[in-house]
């Protein structure tokens, strides 16, 4: 277990998630201004949280890519259990970070929601592609939200672009929970052969 923890960078995941969670009150007031090319005002605001929420999930992929694959391939332990533990570490550390930051500021869960959603896309990317390009999934989603997420006709944002919302709605939490569950199930449920792109030479 010690070897796996070291190889998989569990401590680093925990520290990164905790720090991101801790920074929630600071980043919430930070807005990026981008040109609005869809009509309406010339510029549109994008919350800085959507960029920060990418950091732990990209880091998760980086550590996954860096991890000693041979150790993982040869381990006799149940890999699905180990990976589930890594995801739980990610989540718990961030919750702790948000809670700690909430003791000296308002409790804000938006960054946690955004990070959890990014992680769900990251896990899907990790399952379907490879660690080197998996982060394109959450990064592209964030850019799509920034580009097309504003709804200037009705004011506010499109529902699918809830990452842009500063006040989380119930629907956004439901979507995040579902996608995170699905992403986790996909990632932890994949077979060893698929996970490590191993080729069978039995024939």
């Amino acid at each position: 277990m010690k070897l796996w923890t070291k190889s998989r960078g569990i401590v680093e995941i925990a520290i990164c998630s905790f720090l991101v969670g801790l920074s929630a009150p600071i980043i919430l007031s930070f807005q990026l201004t981008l040109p609005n090319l869809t009509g309406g005002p010339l510029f549109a605001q994008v919350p800085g949280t959507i960029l920060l929420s990418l950091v732990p999930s990209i880091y998760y992929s980086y550590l996954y890519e860096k991890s000693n694959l041979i150790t993982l391939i040869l381990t006799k332990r149940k890999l699905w259990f180990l990976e589930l533990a890594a995801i739980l570490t990610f989540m718990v550390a961030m919750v702790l970070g948000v809670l700690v930051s909430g003791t000296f500021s308002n409790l804000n869960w938006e960054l946690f929601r955004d990070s959890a959603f990014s992680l769900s896309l990251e896990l899907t990317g990790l399952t379907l592609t490879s660690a080197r390009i998996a982060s394109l999934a959450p990064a592209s989603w964030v850019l799509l939200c920034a580009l097309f997420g504003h709804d200037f006709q009705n004011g506010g944002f499109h529902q699918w672009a809830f990452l842009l919302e500063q006040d989380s709605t119930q629907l956004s939490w439901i979507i995040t929970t579902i996608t995170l569950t699905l992403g986790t199930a996909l990632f932890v449920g994949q077979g060893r052969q698929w996970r490590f792109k191993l080729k069978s030479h039995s024939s």
Partner: protein
Amino acid sequence: MKGVWKSTVFTAAALLLVGICVAFLFSQSMLNLRYVTGYWLGVTAQSGLTLIVSAGIAAIGGAIEGSRLKSTKANQIPHGRKAWHIALRVLWPVFVAALIIQVLSFLRLSTHGAGASDIPNLSLLLAFFTIVLFHLMLGFNLGLRLAPALSIPVALVSSYFWLGSAWAVNYYPLRYMSGLILMDCCRIYETLNASAIMTAIAFNGLGAIALAIFARRKLVYSKKPQIAIVGTAVLVAAASFAVSANLSNGLGPVPVVNRPTAEMKCTSSRHVVSWGDGNKKFSLPPKICFFPGQDPSNRFAASLDAVWSDLDRLGLRPPKTILATNVVVSANKVGIVATPVSNPAEVTYSLVSDFVGQPIDCGESEAAWIKRDLNYRSLINFLLRATSHNALDMTGFAPSLDPAERATFDNRFASAIAFSRGESLNTATSMWLKQSFESVRSCDAKLPARS
């Protein structure tokens, strides 16, 4: 090498496929027809809409190829190949893919260029080329230095936010360095400031060279630290910033400037009179001036002529020259807004509203200002009714009046409608009109009664 070659082509093809889909969606939702119709400069500039996609594709592709080369440890294992040869070999497929997106974007918009009298702006196309190249080299360097899991998303996000966010900063030169702002151009009576284009070319061109030199450090085998390479790269990067900052020094928040009126063609379709020996001719007003292609089906000139005559018949003495540009003009000229996709009613409404102007602020009390504003709104309502005809209805553009206000001016508006049918104005209405018109422009003029 064959395997690497296959991979680079596959990467480029995959990115091209995704890029074309996103670029099509993007330009479909954001295209401004007022910019592109009948004006090659507008077509060229608006093709830059897809830079967000093509530059992103170039950055991702560069990062993928960079990370692939990183794994070969080319700077640690002796080899005989030149750095530029290696870079060119792996980068050109993805560079071509990104350029294809730009070319397709341009070709798609070029269908709107029919009837334009200018030619596509080559320097602007060169600016877009250098922007794509800069993002390619940026991604390539990230790929050569960071782990793929980091370099690829960082390349995409940094490319997007550099292009987008730089546009919104208050330090204007940065807007022109990133270059996306160049796509926000131009209605037919506007043009791009050449310094803005040169800034984008200088920054992105020299910046790409600096990044290429910097990348060389990771491609050349050497056991010694390559200070000369890094030093040269830093120098070129500093030069690119200095040159482009200097070029964009005098630019304002937007790169668009008014097109010189010397390029306009003026006509006076009516009232050609000959006298003396019959050879001398002179045209009675109005003289109407358009840029080539601005009035493609000759609909605006005839409508403007009719409305001008009505204003003249009302005794308001409209300026004798009408210029289809938003350049501030003298007292005997009036500017109107017209693009090839405007309809005649929009153009003639522009003549009426620009001729009247905005109510002057005389620093009065709020109650007095409300009266002045009501006078202005009633005057525009009156004029639009008086100059509208069956085929040219401008009343839809009239400023709103509430029912009580409308009731006050019912008689005036009835006179206006009668005037549009060919009747003359009665003396009281004529006096009211002149007084109302004067008080919009002058603080000395007294507001007419009942307003």
